């Protein structure tokens, strides 16, 4: 308390001022994409260029949804793929990682130490760098051009399991024992006790899993050869490739980019409190 009183000082006032400017600067790209997405075609060619939109319009979103349906693969297909992939991945990552973390945290069994040390070791390097063997494996077991090709690689998430192990081991053993005495099955314990109690950790994992999957272009580029199986992130990425030094179409790309950003924002705002909680209690220890 004493510290607090002492600190309402010029330091804090200065800090807030400088920080507001900095934060405004950092958020510029977001403001830009928001404005650009609503710009009509003619405002893109204005000279001098304008940062803010003058006559906002929904034309860009309309043409994304309607006109793009004339193309070989309609925009809605990419969107649909992204939603399906993100939803599947999110659910499965949560279930699979929590299940693994539950037994790793609460039971003793053979090979447990081996598995734990393998997980810890895999945290030590970035498996993302070995995209070539992944590509060969996906092709080998025939997962290319299926939704599994998007989802399954994301399920191998050692970071998620590691965070969850830390979190689940804090659930009191007495609780698990009591449930067992009351006749709950292993699956019942998992469903009724472990899953609800690890909600904060699950929220954190949801955020970074969702961000990873939603913005991932790698699975679409490498594992999917048919255009109809690729995701929104890939579509936005391919819109970009024609845009260098080309003004027309920027608003369309911005609109698509905005669509990529909004789900992330919603998920973050939903789970933010929970995230800070988990980061305090678990994390890599």
């Amino acid at each position, binding site marked *: 308390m004493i510290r607090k009183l002492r600190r309402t000082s010029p330091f804090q006032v200065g800090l807030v001022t400088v920080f507001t400017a900095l934060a405004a600067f950092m958020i510029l790209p977001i403001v830009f994409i928001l404005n650009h997405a609503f710009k009509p075609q003619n405002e893109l060619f204005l000279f001098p260029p304008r940062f803010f939109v003058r006559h906002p319009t929904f034309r860009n979103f309309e043409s994304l949804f309607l006109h793009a349906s004339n193309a070989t693969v309609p925009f809605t297909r990419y969107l649909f793929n992204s939603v399906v992939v993100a939803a599947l991945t999110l659910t499965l990552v949560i279930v699979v990682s929590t299940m693994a973390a539950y037994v790793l945290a609460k039971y003793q069994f053979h090979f447990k130490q081996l598995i734990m040390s393998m997980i810890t070791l895999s945290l030590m390097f970035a498996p993302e*760098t070995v995209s070539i*063997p992944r590509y060969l494996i996906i092709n080998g077991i025939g997962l290319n051009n299926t939704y599994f090709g998007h989802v399954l690689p994301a399920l191998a998430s050692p970071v998620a399991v590691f965070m969850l192990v830390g979190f689940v081991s804090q659930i009191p053993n007495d609780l698990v024992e009591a449930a067992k005495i009351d006749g709950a099955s292993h699956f019942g314990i998992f469903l009724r006790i472990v899953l609800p109690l690890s909600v904060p950790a699950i929220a954190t994992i949801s955020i970074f899993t969702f961000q990873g999957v939603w913005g991932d272009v790698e699975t679409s580029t490498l594992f999917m050869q048919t255009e109809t199986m690729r995701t929104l992130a890939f579509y936005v990425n391919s819109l970009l490739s024609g845009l260098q030094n080309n003004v027309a179409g920027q608003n369309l790309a911005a609109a698509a980019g905005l669509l990529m950003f909004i789900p992330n924002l919603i998920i973050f705002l939903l789970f933010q409190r929970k995230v800070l909680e988990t980061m305090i209690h678990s994390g890599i220890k």
Partner: protein
Amino acid sequence: MKTELSPSIRTSRAQTIGLRWSRFWAEIRRDAFCYLFIAPFLLCFTVFIVVPVVMAATLGFTSYDGFGKLHFIGFSNYIELFTQDIIFLTKALPNTFLFALIVGPGGYMLAFLFAWLIHQLPIRIRDYYTLAFYAPSMAGAVALSVVWIAAFSGDRVGYVNHFLLQMGWIDSPIIWLQDPKYLMKIMILVSLWISFSVGFLAMLAGLQTVNRELYEAGRIDGISNRLQEVFYITIPSMKPQMLFSAVMTIVSTLKAGSISTQLTGAAITPQYAGHLIINHIDDYAFIRFELGYASSISVMLLLVSYFAMRFAYRLFGSKEEL
């Protein structure tokens, strides 16, 4: 067991092994549900992490084009990589070094600095600032590339060019994204912009865990300024979060190679100005289909990431993990 208790009866070795075996099986069967629970994760983990790493290590010693037969060629790939691959040695390696050094540790320190400063703000307004810093990384590299491409457009209509012309700092528009002189700098700038990611959130959370009484104790023990406070109290008290953040930073820095492709629209950047090791791998793997050679490069990258992580664990990990 009776056999073990009475020394007069000599049990044969085979019998003991058999006994152990059956006990082992009984235990496995008793814990069957454990294995059942862990199976889905373990399966994906093996197929998409363990096997690929082993495969990459093996492929690195071969010459393989994805269709024909594997030829084992020993260390040739590695020797070639370090003696003959001029683009790797003169472009990819120095570029990656520069990029990783600034975006990795630089971004990490910036994230900590801003997390710390946000923590000094009154609690009511903290969330807004957190959101402002976190939003760009939330939008993701792909979505934000739209912004960078428009901002760094090479004509007078480009926002950066227009601003600089207006201020009179340049005489003619600069083709930012195609000019080898600027490409790398822009790549670093935009990567730093989105470096306030999950690790940044972890740091913010970590700062809340620091026991306030420690600061008082530190002051009594002779800590005189905020810098000392940060180094001797704050960072040691939030090691787990610092480590988590470091791990996230290393992974995202290594993956960041696609930024050059997104900015220039070409798989190979002009004069290899923004060529990172990860682009080099993609070039050899998915354009030239020399999978063996590309694998040997990714093994090198894997090793680099391993040592970077080890370094992070050394710094922030607890003692017993090493």
